[in-house]
């Protein structure tokens, strides 16, 4: 399987995108408060958000930037305090749409969803690992999903992430984090 670096270079080259940017580890994130809705869409609405709520200002990367999604992380947080299991005891399905293509479709974020949810692989955090008896303000771990097939987000291409549940998320804030290898604008030599 192609590495993240070579896959990003291949796609950038096919698209005619710049390939000389600063190589880096890129992490983008966005938050939503879906209320009683059963779906939540990330990276679509940026109005009024601070840097703490999203580190993008539009639903696409800049013209000289691109990235490979390797890990998707979700958190559900009580306002101003700690985390809670994502989606409580309900199934939560994740879809990722890049351009007009669905590149991840209705993927459960972990198996055995609910307060006993576990990640599919053995390395990443579960949705609901409780720090039992510990007086932490955050007493739940985030949900982390390591993709087996890297997804490329090319420059200037709209993308968004959708969560669906059979319950609802209440008034909690949902956070979606996409992380992996990327390139950012850089003039001159890269480090």
């Amino acid at each position, binding site marked *: 399987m192609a590495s993240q670096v070579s896959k990003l270079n291949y796609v950038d080259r096919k698209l005619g995108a710049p390939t000389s940017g600063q190589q880096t580890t890129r992490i983008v994130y966005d938050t939503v408060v879906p209320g009683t809705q059963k779906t939540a869409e990330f990276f679509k609405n940026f109005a009024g958000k601070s840097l703490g709520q999203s580190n993008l200002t539009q639903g696409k990367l800049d013209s000289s930037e691109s990235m490979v999604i390797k890990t998707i992380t979700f958190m559900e947080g009580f306002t101003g305090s700690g985390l809670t299991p994502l989606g409580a005891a309900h199934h939560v399905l994740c879809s990722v749409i890049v351009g007009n293509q669905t590149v991840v479709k209705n993927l459960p974020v972990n198996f055995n969803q609910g307060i006993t949810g576990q990640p599919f692989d053995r390395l990443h955090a579960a949705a609901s690992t409780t720090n039992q008896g510990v007086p932490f303000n955050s007493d739940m771990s*985030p949900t982390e999903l390591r993709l087996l097939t890297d997804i490329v987000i090319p420059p200037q291409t709209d993308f968004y992430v959708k969560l669906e549940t059979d319950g609802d998320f209440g008034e909690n804030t949902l956070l979606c*984090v996409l992380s992996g290898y990327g390139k*950012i604008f850089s003039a001159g030599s890269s480090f």
Partner: protein
Amino acid sequence: MYVANKLGLSTLNQMQGSTGAVYDTDISNVGILFGNASQHTFPAQTNVTENKFEVNSALLIETIAFYRLDSQGVPLNLLFPANGLVGTDVLVFDLIIGNKVVMKDTPIFLGGGPTTFASMPKVDTFGQEATIPRHQIFLEGAGILIPPQVEWSIQYSIYNFTTGAKKQVNPQTDGTIAAYLFGTRVLLNFNTTL
């Protein structure tokens, strides 16, 4: 070596290859790490005397980790619990080398993740069933080189992702933020590399 050659560091490959880590503490609480390292105490607050490496010394960063010193100066491996910091807070940082931002708006979520490689939580001292998150990023795909004689720093801010509000660390109750950069080190060596 590829980057070193591109930067004109033609003798770097004759130096001693090693493993290294540098750390610094923001004791002034101004949101800057390494930038003021020359004013900090060795080794309690930093292990560098200035925020640039000497000639023919370098660091290829492979992981970045954050921690804090409590108000007594004791290192703690957590950014929380602290009186003012909670699990929905996020530390957002830029890594700057020379005049270039090489990692931008990069989040460290206090609730844990994304570590980008593996979360591998640490077993908590309060109970065997408990785990605490790592506040660490493993760099994906490509490490980042800090070349010799080029200044570097980390600039950070802390927010809450549910309210969006920016938060100020209180050194008296929260302690002070600190960070490690760990990776492959090149040490100045005049003789044959061992």
